[in-house]
Protein backbone atom coordinates (compact mmCIF):
# COMPACT_ATOMS: atom_id res chain seq x y z
CA UNK A 1 0.00 0.00 0.00
CA UNK A 2 1.26 3.50 -0.82
CA UNK A 3 1.63 5.67 2.28
CA UNK A 4 -0.40 8.40 0.64
CA UNK A 5 -2.86 7.52 -2.06
CA UNK A 6 -4.63 9.77 -4.52
CA UNK A 7 -8.40 9.90 -3.99
CA UNK A 8 -8.85 7.88 -7.16
CA UNK A 9 -6.44 5.18 -5.97
CA UNK A 10 -8.06 5.23 -2.53
CA UNK A 11 -11.57 4.63 -3.84
CA UNK A 12 -10.55 1.89 -6.27
CA UNK A 13 -8.45 0.13 -3.62
CA UNK A 14 -11.35 0.24 -1.13
CA UNK A 15 -13.72 -1.20 -3.72
CA UNK A 16 -11.24 -3.98 -4.49
CA UNK A 17 -10.84 -4.58 -0.75
CA UNK A 18 -7.16 -3.76 -0.81
CA UNK A 19 -5.50 -1.72 1.98
CA UNK A 20 -6.08 2.03 1.85
CA UNK A 21 -4.32 4.93 3.54
CA UNK A 22 -7.64 6.18 4.89
CA UNK A 23 -11.37 5.69 4.48
CA UNK A 24 -12.52 7.37 1.26
CA UNK A 25 -15.62 9.58 1.32
CA UNK A 26 -18.50 10.12 -1.09
CA UNK A 27 -21.02 12.92 -0.66
CA UNK A 28 -23.69 11.37 -2.92
CA UNK A 29 -24.05 14.80 -4.50
CA UNK A 30 -26.47 14.89 -7.39
CA UNK A 31 -28.85 17.86 -7.51
CA UNK A 32 -26.84 19.75 -4.90
CA UNK A 33 -24.10 19.99 -7.53
CA UNK A 34 -26.21 22.63 -9.29
CA UNK A 35 -26.38 24.68 -6.08
CA UNK A 36 -22.62 24.27 -5.54
CA UNK A 37 -21.89 25.45 -9.08
CA UNK A 38 -24.30 28.38 -8.96
CA UNK A 39 -26.34 27.25 -11.94
CA UNK A 40 -29.98 26.27 -12.34
CA UNK A 41 -30.99 22.65 -12.02
CA UNK A 42 -32.26 22.83 -15.59
CA UNK A 43 -28.89 23.96 -16.92
CA UNK A 44 -27.12 21.41 -14.76
CA UNK A 45 -29.28 18.62 -16.17
CA UNK A 46 -28.77 19.64 -19.79
CA UNK A 47 -25.15 20.75 -20.04
CA UNK A 48 -22.09 18.62 -19.41
CA UNK A 49 -20.04 21.76 -18.77
CA UNK A 50 -22.49 22.98 -16.12
CA UNK A 51 -22.69 19.57 -14.50
CA UNK A 52 -18.90 19.38 -14.39
CA UNK A 53 -18.69 22.88 -12.95
CA UNK A 54 -21.18 21.97 -10.22
CA UNK A 55 -19.49 18.70 -9.34
CA UNK A 56 -16.06 20.32 -9.22
CA UNK A 57 -17.44 23.13 -7.04
CA UNK A 58 -18.89 20.52 -4.67
CA UNK A 59 -15.50 18.78 -4.56
CA UNK A 60 -13.75 22.08 -3.81
CA UNK A 61 -16.17 22.88 -0.99
CA UNK A 62 -16.08 19.45 0.64
CA UNK A 63 -12.95 17.54 -0.37
CA UNK A 64 -14.76 14.27 -1.10
CA UNK A 65 -12.87 11.46 -2.82
CA UNK A 66 -15.68 10.27 -5.05
CA UNK A 67 -18.08 12.15 -7.33
CA UNK A 68 -21.27 10.92 -8.99
CA UNK A 69 -22.08 13.31 -11.86
CA UNK A 70 -25.83 12.90 -12.05
CA UNK A 71 -28.78 15.24 -12.35
CA UNK A 72 -31.96 13.20 -12.26
CA UNK A 73 -33.64 9.90 -13.12
CA UNK A 74 -34.51 10.92 -16.65
CA UNK A 75 -31.09 10.92 -18.29
CA UNK A 76 -31.67 7.54 -19.91
CA UNK A 77 -35.48 7.46 -19.69
CA UNK A 78 -35.82 10.57 -21.84
CA UNK A 79 -34.18 8.63 -24.66
CA UNK A 80 -37.04 6.16 -24.56
CA UNK A 81 -39.59 8.92 -24.95
CA UNK A 82 -40.33 9.91 -21.36
CA UNK A 83 -41.30 13.59 -21.14
CA UNK A 84 -39.55 15.53 -18.41
CA UNK A 85 -40.59 18.62 -16.53
CA UNK A 86 -37.82 21.16 -16.07
CA UNK A 87 -38.20 23.95 -13.55
CA UNK A 88 -35.48 26.10 -12.11
CA UNK A 89 -34.57 25.15 -8.57
CA UNK A 90 -36.09 21.68 -8.84
CA UNK A 91 -34.73 18.30 -9.81
CA UNK A 92 -36.16 17.52 -13.27
CA UNK A 93 -39.14 15.22 -12.89
CA UNK A 94 -40.49 12.33 -14.94
CA UNK A 95 -43.73 13.80 -16.24
CA UNK A 96 -45.21 11.59 -18.97
CA UNK A 97 -44.22 7.94 -19.17
CA UNK A 98 -43.31 6.16 -22.40
CA UNK A 99 -44.64 2.73 -21.50
CA UNK A 100 -48.34 2.78 -20.76
CA UNK A 101 -49.50 -0.63 -21.99
CA UNK A 102 -47.78 -4.02 -21.75
CA UNK A 103 -47.28 -3.96 -25.55
CA UNK A 104 -45.18 -0.81 -25.20
CA UNK A 105 -42.31 -2.73 -23.58
CA UNK A 106 -41.58 -4.34 -26.93
CA UNK A 107 -41.47 -0.96 -28.67
CA UNK A 108 -38.42 0.22 -26.71
CA UNK A 109 -35.24 0.33 -28.79
CA UNK A 110 -31.55 0.15 -27.91
CA UNK A 111 -30.35 3.72 -27.39
CA UNK A 112 -27.20 5.46 -28.56
CA UNK A 113 -25.73 7.10 -25.43
CA UNK A 114 -24.06 9.82 -27.49
CA UNK A 115 -27.28 10.82 -29.18
CA UNK A 116 -30.35 9.74 -27.22
CA UNK A 117 -31.70 11.14 -23.97
CA UNK A 118 -29.23 13.09 -21.84
CA UNK A 119 -26.63 10.40 -21.28
CA UNK A 120 -24.22 12.57 -23.27
CA UNK A 121 -24.50 15.25 -20.56
CA UNK A 122 -22.98 12.89 -18.01
CA UNK A 123 -20.39 11.64 -20.52
CA UNK A 124 -19.32 15.23 -21.29
CA UNK A 125 -19.20 16.05 -17.57
CA UNK A 126 -16.98 13.05 -16.85
CA UNK A 127 -14.50 14.10 -19.55
CA UNK A 128 -14.32 17.61 -18.16
CA UNK A 129 -13.98 16.58 -14.52
CA UNK A 130 -11.29 14.04 -15.33
CA UNK A 131 -9.48 16.58 -17.51
CA UNK A 132 -9.47 19.22 -14.76
CA UNK A 133 -8.98 17.10 -11.64
CA UNK A 134 -7.08 14.06 -12.90
CA UNK A 135 -6.55 11.57 -10.08
CA UNK A 136 -7.68 14.03 -7.42
CA UNK A 137 -11.09 12.42 -7.57
CA UNK A 138 -12.73 9.16 -8.47
CA UNK A 139 -15.77 9.38 -10.75
CA UNK A 140 -18.68 6.95 -10.76
CA UNK A 141 -21.90 8.33 -12.24
CA UNK A 142 -25.36 7.05 -11.40
CA UNK A 143 -26.48 4.41 -13.89
CA UNK A 144 -29.91 2.84 -13.42
CA UNK A 145 -30.23 -0.94 -13.62
CA UNK A 146 -32.78 -2.34 -16.08
CA UNK A 147 -35.51 -2.86 -13.46
CA UNK A 148 -34.90 0.60 -12.01
CA UNK A 149 -35.01 1.99 -15.56
CA UNK A 150 -38.32 0.21 -16.09
CA UNK A 151 -39.79 2.27 -13.25
CA UNK A 152 -38.49 5.42 -14.93
CA UNK A 153 -40.16 4.73 -18.28
CA UNK A 154 -43.38 3.33 -16.83
CA UNK A 155 -45.51 4.14 -13.81
CA UNK A 156 -44.02 2.06 -11.01
CA UNK A 157 -47.35 0.64 -9.97
CA UNK A 158 -47.81 -0.72 -13.49
CA UNK A 159 -44.31 -2.23 -13.51
CA UNK A 160 -45.08 -4.01 -10.27
CA UNK A 161 -48.30 -5.38 -11.71
CA UNK A 162 -46.55 -6.41 -14.93
CA UNK A 163 -44.21 -8.56 -12.83
CA UNK A 164 -47.24 -10.72 -12.06
CA UNK A 165 -49.63 -10.10 -14.95
CA UNK A 166 -47.37 -9.50 -17.96
CA UNK A 167 -43.93 -10.96 -17.21
CA UNK A 168 -43.03 -11.81 -20.81
CA UNK A 169 -43.73 -8.30 -22.03
CA UNK A 170 -41.73 -6.80 -19.16
CA UNK A 171 -38.79 -9.09 -19.91
CA UNK A 172 -38.71 -7.82 -23.49
CA UNK A 173 -38.30 -4.28 -22.22
CA UNK A 174 -35.72 -5.27 -19.63
CA UNK A 175 -33.58 -6.94 -22.31
CA UNK A 176 -33.61 -3.82 -24.47
CA UNK A 177 -32.77 -1.57 -21.55
CA UNK A 178 -30.03 -3.95 -20.50
CA UNK A 179 -28.37 -3.68 -23.93
CA UNK A 180 -28.56 0.11 -23.73
CA UNK A 181 -27.04 0.23 -20.26
CA UNK A 182 -24.08 -1.93 -21.29
CA UNK A 183 -23.36 0.52 -24.13
CA UNK A 184 -23.78 3.49 -21.82
CA UNK A 185 -21.32 2.11 -19.30
CA UNK A 186 -18.80 1.50 -22.11
CA UNK A 187 -19.04 5.19 -22.96
CA UNK A 188 -18.69 6.48 -19.40
CA UNK A 189 -15.61 4.31 -18.86
CA UNK A 190 -14.11 5.59 -22.11
CA UNK A 191 -14.82 9.13 -20.91
CA UNK A 192 -12.73 8.59 -17.79
CA UNK A 193 -15.08 7.23 -15.16
CA UNK A 194 -13.79 4.57 -12.80
CA UNK A 195 -17.07 2.70 -12.87
CA UNK A 196 -20.73 3.17 -12.11
CA UNK A 197 -22.96 3.80 -9.14
CA UNK A 198 -25.29 1.10 -10.38
CA UNK A 199 -28.81 1.68 -9.09
CA UNK A 200 -30.39 -1.60 -8.10
CA UNK A 201 -32.99 0.35 -6.21
CA UNK A 202 -35.78 -2.21 -6.41
CA UNK A 203 -33.77 -4.93 -4.66
CA UNK A 204 -35.48 -4.48 -1.32
CA UNK A 205 -38.04 -6.64 0.45
CA UNK A 206 -40.75 -4.01 0.64
CA UNK A 207 -40.63 -3.69 -3.16
CA UNK A 208 -39.82 -7.15 -4.50
CA UNK A 209 -39.39 -10.59 -3.01
CA UNK A 210 -35.93 -12.07 -3.45
CA UNK A 211 -37.38 -14.46 -6.05
CA UNK A 212 -38.96 -11.60 -7.99
CA UNK A 213 -35.75 -9.59 -7.89
CA UNK A 214 -33.77 -12.62 -9.04
CA UNK A 215 -36.02 -13.06 -12.07
CA UNK A 216 -36.60 -9.44 -13.04
CA UNK A 217 -33.53 -7.71 -11.64
CA UNK A 218 -30.53 -9.83 -10.78
CA UNK A 219 -30.39 -11.77 -14.02
CA UNK A 220 -29.89 -8.50 -15.92
CA UNK A 221 -27.70 -6.86 -13.28
CA UNK A 222 -25.20 -9.71 -13.36
CA UNK A 223 -24.93 -9.55 -17.14
CA UNK A 224 -24.21 -5.82 -17.00
CA UNK A 225 -21.67 -6.11 -14.19
CA UNK A 226 -19.92 -8.83 -16.15
CA UNK A 227 -19.61 -6.40 -19.07
CA UNK A 228 -18.38 -3.63 -16.76
CA UNK A 229 -15.73 -5.90 -15.30
CA UNK A 230 -14.51 -6.89 -18.75
CA UNK A 231 -14.02 -3.19 -19.47
CA UNK A 232 -11.99 -2.81 -16.28
CA UNK A 233 -14.62 -0.75 -14.45
CA UNK A 234 -15.65 -0.81 -10.81
CA UNK A 235 -19.18 -0.67 -9.45
CA UNK A 236 -21.14 0.29 -6.39
CA UNK A 237 -24.63 -1.18 -6.20
CA UNK A 238 -27.07 1.37 -4.82
CA UNK A 239 -30.13 -0.03 -3.09
CA UNK A 240 -33.02 1.80 -1.44
CA UNK A 241 -35.36 0.63 1.28
CA UNK A 242 -35.36 -0.82 4.75
CA UNK A 243 -34.99 -4.52 3.91
CA UNK A 244 -32.36 -4.65 1.14
CA UNK A 245 -31.66 -7.99 -0.54
CA UNK A 246 -28.09 -7.56 0.67
CA UNK A 247 -27.13 -11.23 0.51
CA UNK A 248 -28.37 -11.58 -3.06
CA UNK A 249 -26.54 -8.44 -4.19
CA UNK A 250 -23.34 -9.27 -2.31
CA UNK A 251 -23.18 -12.60 -4.11
CA UNK A 252 -23.12 -11.04 -7.57
CA UNK A 253 -19.82 -12.39 -8.96
CA UNK A 254 -18.57 -8.97 -10.06
CA UNK A 255 -20.04 -6.66 -7.44
CA UNK A 256 -17.48 -4.38 -5.75
CA UNK A 257 -19.50 -2.35 -3.28
CA UNK A 258 -23.00 -1.84 -1.93
CA UNK A 259 -24.43 1.52 -0.91
CA UNK A 260 -27.50 1.29 1.29
CA UNK A 261 -29.33 3.27 3.95
CA UNK A 262 -27.66 1.60 6.91
CA UNK A 263 -29.12 4.13 9.35
CA UNK A 264 -32.71 3.36 8.37
CA UNK A 265 -32.64 -0.23 7.21
CA UNK A 266 -32.44 -3.55 9.02
CA UNK A 267 -28.69 -3.84 8.48
CA UNK A 268 -26.11 -1.69 10.27
CA UNK A 269 -22.59 -1.13 8.99
CA UNK A 270 -21.28 -3.34 11.78
CA UNK A 271 -23.65 -6.17 10.92
CA UNK A 272 -22.85 -5.87 7.22
CA UNK A 273 -19.13 -5.92 7.96
CA UNK A 274 -19.49 -9.11 9.95
CA UNK A 275 -21.72 -10.89 7.43
CA UNK A 276 -20.52 -9.58 4.08
CA UNK A 277 -17.34 -7.60 4.73
CA UNK A 278 -15.01 -10.25 3.36
CA UNK A 279 -16.45 -10.03 -0.12
CA UNK A 280 -17.97 -6.59 -0.55
CA UNK A 281 -17.01 -2.96 0.11
CA UNK A 282 -19.54 -1.23 2.35
CA UNK A 283 -20.62 2.22 1.21
CA UNK A 284 -22.60 4.04 3.86
CA UNK A 285 -22.51 5.22 7.46
CA UNK A 286 -24.06 8.69 7.14
CA UNK A 287 -27.78 9.45 7.45
CA UNK A 288 -28.95 11.73 4.68
CA UNK A 289 -32.44 11.90 6.20
CA UNK A 290 -31.52 13.22 9.62
CA UNK A 291 -27.91 13.93 10.58
CA UNK A 292 -26.84 15.55 7.33
CA UNK A 293 -29.87 17.83 6.99
CA UNK A 294 -30.92 18.38 10.60
CA UNK A 295 -27.58 18.15 12.37
CA UNK A 296 -24.37 20.13 12.32
CA UNK A 297 -20.71 19.25 11.67
CA UNK A 298 -20.20 17.86 15.18
CA UNK A 299 -23.18 15.50 14.75
CA UNK A 300 -21.79 14.33 11.43
CA UNK A 301 -18.36 13.86 12.96
CA UNK A 302 -19.77 11.61 15.69
CA UNK A 303 -21.82 9.57 13.23
CA UNK A 304 -18.86 9.20 10.89
CA UNK A 305 -16.59 8.10 13.73
CA UNK A 306 -19.06 5.43 14.81
CA UNK A 307 -19.47 4.17 11.25
CA UNK A 308 -15.73 4.03 10.63
CA UNK A 309 -15.17 2.12 13.86
CA UNK A 310 -17.78 -0.42 12.74
CA UNK A 311 -16.86 -0.72 9.08
CA UNK A 312 -13.13 -0.07 8.76
CA UNK A 313 -11.98 -2.78 11.15
CA UNK A 314 -9.66 -4.42 8.63
CA UNK A 315 -8.28 -1.27 7.03
CA UNK A 316 -10.25 -1.52 3.81
CA UNK A 317 -13.64 -2.32 2.31
CA UNK A 318 -15.42 0.85 3.36
CA UNK A 319 -16.41 4.13 1.76
CA UNK A 320 -18.01 6.63 4.12
CA UNK A 321 -21.14 7.90 2.40
CA UNK A 322 -24.80 8.80 2.84
CA UNK A 323 -27.29 6.04 2.05
CA UNK A 324 -28.73 7.96 -0.89
CA UNK A 325 -28.60 11.34 -2.58
CA UNK A 326 -28.13 14.19 -0.14
CA UNK A 327 -30.76 16.91 0.02
CA UNK A 328 -29.93 20.18 -1.76
CA UNK A 329 -30.51 21.77 1.67
CA UNK A 330 -27.51 19.95 3.14
CA UNK A 331 -24.83 22.41 4.22
CA UNK A 332 -21.41 21.81 2.67
CA UNK A 333 -19.82 22.04 6.12
CA UNK A 334 -21.56 18.81 7.07
CA UNK A 335 -20.05 16.93 4.14
CA UNK A 336 -16.69 18.52 4.89
CA UNK A 337 -17.04 17.28 8.48
CA UNK A 338 -17.41 13.73 7.16
CA UNK A 339 -14.18 14.08 5.20
CA UNK A 340 -12.39 15.49 8.24
CA UNK A 341 -13.70 12.62 10.35
CA UNK A 342 -12.31 10.14 7.79
CA UNK A 343 -8.96 11.93 8.00
CA UNK A 344 -9.04 11.79 11.80
CA UNK A 345 -10.56 8.38 12.53
CA UNK A 346 -10.18 6.45 9.29
CA UNK A 347 -6.41 6.37 8.90
CA UNK A 348 -4.44 3.12 9.07
Amino acid at each position, binding site marked *: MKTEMSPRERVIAALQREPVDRVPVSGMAWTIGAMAGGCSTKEYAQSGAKMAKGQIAFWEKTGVDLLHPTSDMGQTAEGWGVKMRYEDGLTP*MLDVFAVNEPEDWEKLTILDPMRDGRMHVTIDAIKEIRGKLGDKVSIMPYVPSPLTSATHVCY*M*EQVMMDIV*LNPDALHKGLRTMSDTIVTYIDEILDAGADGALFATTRASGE*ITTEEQYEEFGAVYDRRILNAVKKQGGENILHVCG*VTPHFRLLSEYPNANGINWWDRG*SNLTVGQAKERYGKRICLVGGLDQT*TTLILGGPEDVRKEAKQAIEAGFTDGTGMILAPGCEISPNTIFENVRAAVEAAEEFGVR
Partner: protein
Amino acid sequence: MNEEQYKMVYDCVVNGKINDATKIGESLKAAGIDSKDVGAVLIDAMNNVGHRYREREIALPQLILATHSFKKMLVPYVGSSASSSGVVVMGVAQNDIHDIGKNLVVGMLQVYGYKVHDLGKDVPLDKFVEQAKATGANVVGAGTLLTATMPELDTILQKLKAAGMKDKVKFMVGGAPVTTTFAKRIGADGYAGDAILAVELVGELMKGNQAYLAASEGRS
Protein backbone atom coordinates in the same frame (compact mmCIF):
# COMPACT_ATOMS: atom_id res chain seq x y z
CA MET B 1 -73.20 -13.27 2.81
CA ASN B 2 -72.88 -17.01 2.51
CA GLU B 3 -69.69 -19.01 2.85
CA GLU B 4 -69.18 -19.34 -0.89
CA GLN B 5 -69.46 -15.59 -1.39
CA TYR B 6 -67.10 -14.97 1.50
CA LYS B 7 -64.48 -17.29 -0.02
CA MET B 8 -64.90 -15.68 -3.43
CA VAL B 9 -64.26 -12.17 -2.08
CA TYR B 10 -61.44 -13.27 0.19
CA ASP B 11 -59.69 -15.29 -2.52
CA CYS B 12 -60.01 -12.48 -5.06
CA VAL B 13 -58.20 -9.99 -2.81
CA VAL B 14 -55.66 -12.30 -1.21
CA ASN B 15 -54.60 -13.62 -4.60
CA GLY B 16 -54.88 -10.27 -6.39
CA LYS B 17 -57.36 -11.45 -9.02
CA ILE B 18 -57.78 -7.95 -10.30
CA ASN B 19 -59.58 -8.97 -13.50
CA ASP B 20 -62.36 -10.71 -11.56
CA ALA B 21 -62.91 -8.04 -8.92
CA THR B 22 -65.45 -5.74 -10.55
CA LYS B 23 -67.59 -8.65 -11.69
CA ILE B 24 -67.60 -10.09 -8.18
CA GLY B 25 -68.56 -6.71 -6.72
CA GLU B 26 -71.43 -6.39 -9.18
CA SER B 27 -72.66 -9.90 -8.43
CA LEU B 28 -72.63 -9.22 -4.70
CA LYS B 29 -74.57 -6.00 -5.09
CA ALA B 30 -77.07 -7.70 -7.39
CA ALA B 31 -77.51 -10.37 -4.72
CA GLY B 32 -78.38 -7.66 -2.21
CA ILE B 33 -75.23 -7.99 -0.10
CA ASP B 34 -74.65 -4.88 2.01
CA SER B 35 -71.45 -2.88 1.50
CA LYS B 36 -70.61 -3.25 5.19
CA ASP B 37 -70.62 -7.04 4.83
CA VAL B 38 -68.37 -6.82 1.80
CA GLY B 39 -66.10 -4.40 3.66
CA ALA B 40 -65.80 -6.83 6.57
CA VAL B 41 -64.49 -9.55 4.27
CA LEU B 42 -62.19 -7.12 2.53
CA ILE B 43 -60.70 -6.19 5.89
CA ASP B 44 -60.17 -9.87 6.70
CA ALA B 45 -58.48 -10.35 3.34
CA MET B 46 -56.32 -7.24 3.64
CA ASN B 47 -55.29 -8.22 7.16
CA ASN B 48 -53.99 -11.45 5.64
CA VAL B 49 -52.24 -9.59 2.81
CA GLY B 50 -50.87 -6.99 5.19
CA HIS B 51 -49.53 -9.63 7.55
CA ARG B 52 -47.77 -11.48 4.74
CA TYR B 53 -46.36 -8.20 3.41
CA ARG B 54 -44.99 -7.25 6.81
CA GLU B 55 -43.46 -10.72 7.11
CA ARG B 56 -41.93 -10.23 3.64
CA GLU B 57 -43.68 -13.33 2.31
CA ILE B 58 -45.05 -11.13 -0.46
CA ALA B 59 -43.94 -7.77 -1.81
CA LEU B 60 -45.25 -4.72 -3.64
CA PRO B 61 -46.61 -6.51 -6.74
CA GLN B 62 -48.98 -8.65 -4.67
CA LEU B 63 -49.86 -5.79 -2.33
CA ILE B 64 -50.76 -3.54 -5.26
CA LEU B 65 -52.83 -6.22 -6.94
CA ALA B 66 -54.69 -6.92 -3.71
CA THR B 67 -55.33 -3.21 -3.18
CA HIS B 68 -56.62 -2.72 -6.72
CA SER B 69 -58.76 -5.83 -6.42
CA PHE B 70 -60.58 -4.61 -3.36
CA LYS B 71 -60.96 -1.10 -4.82
CA LYS B 72 -62.47 -2.54 -7.99
CA MET B 73 -64.75 -4.77 -5.98
CA LEU B 74 -66.10 -1.74 -4.15
CA VAL B 75 -66.77 0.28 -7.31
CA PRO B 76 -70.40 -0.89 -7.54
CA TYR B 77 -70.89 0.28 -3.97
CA VAL B 78 -69.39 3.76 -4.30
CA GLY B 79 -71.60 6.32 -2.61
CA SER B 80 -73.72 3.73 -0.84
CA SER B 81 -72.14 4.12 2.58
CA ALA B 82 -73.59 6.85 4.77
CA SER B 83 -71.11 6.66 7.64
CA SER B 84 -67.37 7.20 7.78
CA SER B 85 -64.64 6.49 10.31
CA GLY B 86 -63.15 9.93 9.73
CA VAL B 87 -61.99 12.34 7.05
CA VAL B 88 -58.43 12.25 5.77
CA VAL B 89 -56.69 14.52 3.26
CA MET B 90 -53.75 12.77 1.66
CA GLY B 91 -51.16 13.70 -0.94
CA VAL B 92 -47.55 13.56 -2.13
CA ALA B 93 -45.65 16.79 -1.58
CA GLN B 94 -44.90 19.21 -4.38
CA ASN B 95 -42.01 18.32 -6.68
CA ASP B 96 -42.37 14.61 -6.08
CA ILE B 97 -44.29 12.31 -8.38
CA HIS B 98 -43.76 9.04 -6.49
CA ASP B 99 -47.23 8.13 -5.30
CA ILE B 100 -47.29 4.37 -5.05
CA GLY B 101 -47.10 4.35 -1.24
CA LYS B 102 -49.67 7.10 -0.95
CA ASN B 103 -52.03 5.16 -3.23
CA LEU B 104 -51.73 2.13 -1.01
CA VAL B 105 -52.45 4.19 2.09
CA VAL B 106 -55.48 5.79 0.43
CA GLY B 107 -56.82 2.40 -0.63
CA MET B 108 -56.27 0.87 2.78
CA LEU B 109 -57.97 3.77 4.57
CA GLN B 110 -60.95 3.54 2.24
CA VAL B 111 -61.34 -0.14 3.03
CA TYR B 112 -61.29 0.68 6.72
CA GLY B 113 -64.13 3.14 6.23
CA TYR B 114 -62.38 6.50 6.10
CA LYS B 115 -63.45 9.19 3.68
CA VAL B 116 -60.22 10.05 1.90
CA HIS B 117 -59.65 13.14 -0.22
CA ASP B 118 -56.78 12.06 -2.42
CA LEU B 119 -54.91 15.14 -3.66
CA GLY B 120 -52.61 13.04 -5.82
CA LYS B 121 -48.92 13.66 -6.38
CA ASP B 122 -46.79 16.79 -6.83
CA VAL B 123 -49.37 18.68 -4.77
CA PRO B 124 -48.87 22.44 -4.22
CA LEU B 125 -48.30 22.82 -0.50
CA ASP B 126 -51.11 25.33 0.05
CA LYS B 127 -53.57 22.78 -1.30
CA PHE B 128 -53.13 20.58 1.78
CA VAL B 129 -54.34 23.47 3.93
CA GLU B 130 -57.14 24.47 1.57
CA GLN B 131 -58.50 20.93 1.36
CA ALA B 132 -58.20 20.39 5.11
CA LYS B 133 -60.37 23.46 5.62
CA ALA B 134 -62.82 22.64 2.85
CA THR B 135 -63.41 19.05 3.92
CA GLY B 136 -63.27 19.44 7.68
CA ALA B 137 -60.54 16.85 7.74
CA ASN B 138 -59.55 15.08 10.93
CA VAL B 139 -56.16 14.11 9.56
CA VAL B 140 -53.83 15.53 6.91
CA GLY B 141 -51.24 13.16 5.52
CA ALA B 142 -48.28 14.06 3.36
CA GLY B 143 -45.56 11.89 1.97
CA THR B 144 -42.47 12.00 -0.17
CA LEU B 145 -40.04 9.48 -1.58
CA LEU B 146 -37.21 11.91 -2.16
CA THR B 147 -34.66 13.18 0.31
CA ALA B 148 -34.67 16.41 -1.67
CA THR B 149 -38.34 17.10 -0.94
CA MET B 150 -38.44 16.07 2.71
CA PRO B 151 -38.33 19.72 3.85
CA GLU B 152 -41.67 20.25 2.06
CA LEU B 153 -43.34 18.16 4.77
CA ASP B 154 -42.18 20.64 7.38
CA THR B 155 -43.44 23.50 5.20
CA ILE B 156 -46.92 21.94 5.02
CA LEU B 157 -47.01 21.73 8.80
CA GLN B 158 -45.94 25.36 9.11
CA LYS B 159 -48.68 26.34 6.69
CA LEU B 160 -51.28 24.43 8.74
CA LYS B 161 -50.08 26.28 11.83
CA ALA B 162 -50.14 29.64 10.08
CA ALA B 163 -53.71 28.97 8.97
CA GLY B 164 -54.74 28.20 12.55
CA MET B 165 -55.41 24.56 11.62
CA LYS B 166 -52.89 22.80 13.80
CA ASP B 167 -55.29 22.25 16.70
CA LYS B 168 -58.07 21.15 14.39
CA VAL B 169 -56.29 18.45 12.40
CA LYS B 170 -53.60 15.89 13.07
CA PHE B 171 -50.66 15.89 10.68
CA MET B 172 -49.02 12.61 9.64
CA VAL B 173 -46.03 12.01 7.38
CA GLY B 174 -44.59 9.06 5.53
CA GLY B 175 -42.47 7.94 2.61
CA ALA B 176 -39.30 5.96 2.09
CA PRO B 177 -36.74 8.43 3.53
CA VAL B 178 -39.00 9.70 6.31
CA THR B 179 -38.30 8.41 9.79
CA THR B 180 -39.67 8.70 13.30
CA THR B 181 -36.74 10.98 14.09
CA PHE B 182 -37.56 13.28 11.22
CA ALA B 183 -41.29 13.27 11.99
CA LYS B 184 -40.68 14.21 15.62
CA ARG B 185 -38.09 16.84 14.72
CA ILE B 186 -40.52 18.72 12.48
CA GLY B 187 -43.35 18.30 15.00
CA ALA B 188 -45.63 15.97 13.04
CA ASP B 189 -48.27 14.15 15.08
CA GLY B 190 -47.57 10.82 13.49
CA TYR B 191 -45.46 8.71 11.18
CA ALA B 192 -46.07 5.29 9.68
CA GLY B 193 -43.44 3.11 8.08
CA ASP B 194 -45.80 1.44 5.63
CA ALA B 195 -49.38 1.43 4.38
CA ILE B 196 -50.50 -1.19 6.85
CA LEU B 197 -49.19 0.81 9.78
CA ALA B 198 -50.77 3.95 8.32
CA VAL B 199 -54.23 2.55 9.07
CA GLU B 200 -53.22 1.93 12.68
CA LEU B 201 -51.71 5.40 12.85
CA VAL B 202 -54.85 7.15 11.60
CA GLY B 203 -56.81 5.22 14.21
CA GLU B 204 -54.53 6.59 16.92
CA LEU B 205 -54.68 10.12 15.53
CA MET B 206 -58.48 9.95 15.46
CA LYS B 207 -58.36 9.24 19.21
CA GLY B 208 -56.26 12.37 19.66
CA ASN B 209 -53.03 10.50 20.24
CA GLN B 210 -49.65 10.97 18.65
CA ALA B 211 -47.97 7.85 17.25
CA TYR B 212 -44.77 7.01 15.44
CA LEU B 213 -44.94 3.56 13.93
CA ALA B 214 -41.71 2.46 12.29
CA ALA B 215 -41.82 -0.73 10.26
CA SER B 216 -40.38 -3.44 12.48
CA GLU B 217 -37.56 -4.11 10.03
CA GLY B 218 -36.33 -0.53 10.22
CA ARG B 219 -34.64 0.92 13.24
CA SER B 220 -35.77 4.51 13.12
